[in-house]
């Protein structure tokens, strides 16, 4: 059984600019959570995103304790400004 999963992290707007990328593949251990994905992104670029950004898992707002599975899409959502 695989011990790692790959997920796709998406960054937008100011976060993407600061990170220098809008899409980041992440390898995480099985059982990792949304919060672990955020921590992994912050490990790569601590200043790019805040400590507790809003996040979405597979296009829905998510809690940090939701467990990820292979192929999930985690989006880090800057303050929205539509309208």
């Amino acid at each position, binding site marked *: 059984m695989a011990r790692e999963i790959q997920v796709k992290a998406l960054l937008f707007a100011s976060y993407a600019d600061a990170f220098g990328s809008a899409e980041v593949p992440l390898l995480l251990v099985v059982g990792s959570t949304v919060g672990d994905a*955020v921590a992994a992104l912050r490990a790569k670029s601590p200043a790019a995103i805040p400590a*507790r950004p809003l*996040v979405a898992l597979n*296009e829905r707002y998510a809690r*940090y304790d939701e467990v990820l599975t292979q192929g999930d899409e985690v989006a880090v959502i800057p*303050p929205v400004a*539509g309208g």
Partner: protein
Amino acid sequence: MRAALVTRPIDPATLVAEVADHSCGAVSIFLGTVRNAHAGKAVTGMEYKAYEPMAVRELEAILLRARERFAVEHIVVEHRLGRLELGEVSVAIVAAHPHRREAMDATRFTIEEIKKTVPIWKLEHYADGSREWVDPTRGAPPVQPPANVAEVVG
């Protein structure tokens, strides 16, 4: 009920025709347009981006709630993406109801909800050549994080 992200100019008249219904005595229209100033700086244009599939999903969820709350017969929303000039329509919400109060309440509710949850961002272009992503939370209290984040983020 229809929600869409579009890259072409929004035509309010088309949306009014879309909701037309002889049982409705009221059609309410809200248009958001690109303003020439923000926080004391002269704005020359705007660029909208979205997390598109999620933004459509959120817009549809808001329309469902609006329909539930105000029993509007028909409601449509279009939000524009890409580069917009001053005065152009960035968002249009059109609702039809037998009576005016519900139609107007539905459009107001919808724009207020859009500003809270729909993952759309705007990059303002200023007269001095600079650009900035608009952050409506700047200067406001921080957004309440989801429960139980303290132990994960360290």
